[in-house]
């Protein structure tokens, strides 16, 4: 896999004093089920957080709250200085700052790759088609997939589709990118091309929250690893510290299982 030395920190400085995301005492319920229990988290500009933990622990739910794909019961969410209120305008203004990549890609199957990427630029930012396509091509090029621009999603491999999904999110020039297990639906031979794309993003200083169990990626890219179980963050540490000496019993058990499977 990747070499595990941390990325050159000079090119990826984290500004300690510029907070990009602040979650305060988030509680999320699904009916009677308490999915997120009083979670607080601050992410600074340029920071890269890896979120891991057993299935069902609330990782997806947590990052989906940040762009209001899930509504929270109480707590506050502030993104790029804007506090989320429960109205369409506030939600929209936050969604514009947040890009998201899903486990199952969620490309629009009836639209060509170029239109997948340029649609929101036209509809949300009001650009003309050619202006939007220039930007779409720029980001498709950045994920090394420009030559597929006129194909449909189904004509691409899983790894290519996920890179398109990354480009599609980048087109909106978000301040932060959320990744929800972006490689777990991929065949093993395609995992690397997606992780490499994400590493490239990190090198360019993108603020990222990644739900992933890819330890190599976490060691190379993350500033912090957060371990979740039962809707709580049980442990938070630098990647090397977390992977070599986890403190919490649940974290030890979890890492043991991951290692057994790899």
């Amino acid at each position, binding site marked *: 896999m990747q070499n595990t030395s941390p990325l050159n920190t000079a090119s990826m400085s984290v500004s300690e004093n510029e907070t990009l995301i602040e979650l305060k005492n988030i509680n999320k319920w699904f009916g009677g089920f308490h999915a997120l229990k009083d979670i607080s988290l601050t992410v600074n500009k340029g920071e890269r957080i890896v979120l891991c933990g057993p299935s069902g622990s609330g990782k997806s739910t947590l990052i989906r709250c940040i762009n209001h794909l899930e509504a929270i019961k109480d707590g506050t969410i502030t993104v790029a200085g804007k506090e989320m209120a429960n109205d369409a305008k506030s939600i929209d203004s936050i969604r514009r700052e947040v890009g*998201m990549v899903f486990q199952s890609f969620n490309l629009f199957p009836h639209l060509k790759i170029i239109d997948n990427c340029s649609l929101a630029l036209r509809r949300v930012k009001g650009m003309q088609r050619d202006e939007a396509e220039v930007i779409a091509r720029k980001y498709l090029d950045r994920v090394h997939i420009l030559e597929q621009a006129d194909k449909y999603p189904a004509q691409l491999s899983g790894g290519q589709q996920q890179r398109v999904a990354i480009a599609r999110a980048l087109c909106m020039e978000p301040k932060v990118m959320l990744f929800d297990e972006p490689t777990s639906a991929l065949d093993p031979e395609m995992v690397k091309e997606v992780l490499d794309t994400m590493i490239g993003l990190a090198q360019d200083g993108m603020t990222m929250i990644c739900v992933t169990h890819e330890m190599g990626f976490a060691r190379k890219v993350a500033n912090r690893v957060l371990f979740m179980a039962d809707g709580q963050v049980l442990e938070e540490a630098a990647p090397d510290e977390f992977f070599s000496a986890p403190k919490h019993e649940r974290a030890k058990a979890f890492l043991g299982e991951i290692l057994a499977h790899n």
Partner: protein
Amino acid sequence: MNAFGLPEILFLLQGLKWTVLLTIISFIGGGVIGLLIALARVSTSPVIQRLAAAYIALFQGTPLLMQLFIIYYGLALLQINVDAWIAVSFAYTAHASAFLGDIWRGTIQSLPRGQTEAANALSLGYVSRMRDIILPQALKISLPATIGFAVQLTKGTSLAAIVGFIELARAGQIVSNLIFQPLLVFGIVGLIYFAICWPMSIWGTRMERRMSRNHA
């Protein structure tokens, strides 16, 4: 006794014209209103959802014949004087909108949730989400069922004869009463329906087969 000649054929074709017109009007009217019903049915507001569900249940749960009677005589009772064919188009539009609305509601809901989520994450608004993402996919999937309904609708227009609307089936009855050759006349009427409906059915089936192949 009259024979079956050119005047009788022309009379049947006159009836056919009304059958086709009524089908087209109720399909277009039903399509427009049905789209609104489908959108209301998948709306996030529970009140709007329930209203649309009630509308669909009302028109799917009662015989078309009753709907025709009620709208036809109901309008008269309300002192609204309209042509038979306006009343009939009204009834068929309502009928078609409930069925099309329910077909499209189903295909909209059959799309993966991820499509809506991706659109939301990109901050696409409601109009764009529906027009650019959801409806193009849903309507395409629904094409075989939609064509199937158009076939039912075409045949269903024969019920309009009950309230005195002279479409193809009623025209056939009138001709048959004149020339006393019911088998011949209704045979011909049947053939005309068949000539319209069968190609549509074939088209729908072919569409369905092509789609399931694309999905495989």
